[in-house]
């Protein structure tokens, strides 16, 4: 450890010295060096980094608890054994109505800590933004069946009989129902609507516009997008896990209710 520190220290001091010597050996003015510095630090666009956080009833979500520490508005005690979800097209909105969208997606799997930070490759123009918004899941344009090999590898596809494309969320756990333990799997994706005359597949993504998300980009910036898990089951529809526990993917009602409850699920911390 000490040696490593020493090497790092030497490198830290020696590197600028090296550049000095390189410069001193050259006869011409150090034009090249100036150019490199300019490319590295573009004063008009900045890297952003987003922490993906999850809370339940105001506390940080803990996976796989032995007890059931959380409660739905409907009164069921529950725990969480799995949570994966996809967000895309993070957008920075200005007061004049213009906006900048990062055309990228990110899959969060809370059992895999490396997915809890989203570092988009797209840089964001400097400026004052009045709000941040994003798509939960993919919009119709982006929800391309078999279109993303990284998502297909981790079994994120939404079945073709239900409209294809990809899952938006897999929230799983167990809850107590009149003294019996039951499972729930709140999976969200395209909503299949079967009517007596027709079967249609409805785009089921929503645009999350968390309140108090104004942000000024004038340097590398980081912020947090927080999923408040219990909110999936609260507003405006009070969700009953006994009714919509397992096997809700083909249930049109359940899919649309998730879409209605979704917008109040997210908050942002700048």
């Amino acid at each position: 450890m000490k040696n490593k520190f020493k090497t790092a220290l030497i490198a830290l001091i020696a590197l600028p010295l090296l550049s000095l010597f390189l410069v001193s050996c050259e006869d011409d003015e150090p034009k090249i060096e100036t150019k490199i510095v300019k490319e590295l630090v573009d004063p008009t666009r900045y890297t952003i980094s987003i922490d993906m956080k999850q809370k339940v009833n105001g506390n940080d979500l803990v996976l796989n608890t032995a007890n059931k520490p959380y409660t739905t508005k409907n009164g069921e005690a529950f725990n969480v054994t799995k949570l994966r979800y996809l967000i895309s097209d993070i957008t920075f909105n200005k007061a004049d109505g213009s906006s900048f969208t990062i055309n990228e997606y990110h899959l969060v799997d809370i059992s895999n800590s490396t997915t809890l930070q989203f570092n988009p490759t797209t840089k964001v123009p400097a400026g004052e933004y009045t709000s941040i918004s994003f798509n939960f899941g993919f919009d119709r344009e982006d929800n391309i069946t078999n279109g993303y090999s990284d998502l297909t590898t981790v079994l994120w596809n939404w079945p073709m009989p239900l409209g294809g494309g990809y899952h938006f969320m897999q929230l799983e756990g167990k809850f107590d129902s009149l003294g019996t333990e039951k499972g729930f799997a709140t999976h969200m994706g395209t909503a299949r609507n079967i009517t007596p005359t027709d079967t249609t597949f409805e785009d089921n993504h929503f645009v999350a516009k968390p309140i108090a998300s104004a942000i000024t980009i004038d340097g590398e910036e980081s912020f947090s997008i927080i999923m408040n898990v219990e909110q999936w089951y609260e507003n405006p529809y009070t969700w009953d896990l006994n009714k919509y526990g397992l096997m809700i993917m083909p249930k049109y009602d359940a899919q649309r209710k998730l879409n209605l409850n979704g917008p109040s699920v997210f908050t942002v911390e700048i």
Partner: protein
Amino acid sequence: MVKSILKLSFIILFLAACKKEDNSDIINEQKTDKPITQTPYALNLPPHFVYIDRPQIPIDNPLTVEGIALGKKLYYEKKLSKGGAFDGLACASCHLQSQSFSSNGGNNTQVIPHFNLAWPNQFLWNGKIKGTLEDVMLFEVDDFFQANLLDIKSDPEYQNMYKSAFGNEAIDSKHTAYALAQFLRTLVSGDSKADNEIKKRNGIAYTGQALNAQEKRGYELFISEGKGDCMHCHGIFPNPLWTDFEYRNNGLDANPDSGLAQTTRRASDVGKFKTPSLRNLVFTSPYMHDGRFQTLEEVIDFYTSGVRVSPTIDPTLLKNRNLTPTEKLDLIAFLKAITDSTFVTNPAFSE
């Protein structure tokens, strides 16, 4: 001390920065030995594997023709186990190609089949090894097999093969593991009726048959959350791997074996075992980590009516999978359609 090193580096940097002509000697000095060049080998994946990510290959162990040839010879080498826990056995003694490089190991252990191992990053039924194939092979060589390299080191043929594969590196556990990892990475299985169905549905040319009507019905049950719901753990078109490589308690016992908890020491991991691929099931009976089920019929009956509840059971197992007798037959027909018969006879993988 730091000051003197700094001064020295200062001088070296100065020399390096301004002297340009005098380094020809150094280059010549480094190349006294005749260079050994390996032949790069491109992993040949079936065309429909384009729908999943290409496997990551560690930068320090690229696939080479020579490395793979050495790995294959070692895989079938009985001398490797001399005096160890598995004296007289080779890897291939329990991983039989005719059984998709698997077998029943007795003592309630089912030997994990070896195919499509380039994708997972956690290995063994209890998840003991996280990392790359190199990591798990090093564990096999050093700990599990307690490989004996004395006979290998003194064998002129092996001396040549190690040299061809790894240059002047030592004949040691690391390079033995690296060669085995290279061979295992080439064991790609992707030729079955189900694979043809993926190609067919995506406009990729194929030879042979795709799914018939019964197998297609079986696939629909497989991906239906209200019926088989196999897909959330075992996959869905066009993923050809038929597992997500995760660890789960699938409800085998009311008091399950420790499983993944043996590795993590976490109570929440008790009873969790590696989710196996459903490819080549025809060759890999009996089933489950302990080989308790002899037939696929028994497996399906277990999932429909035999699940036992325990604290860590996966919540998606807490439901009745209502399958009629006909539906069970359809589902099994689909499972059997993920059979790659060319894989178990491919001479590239044989001794």
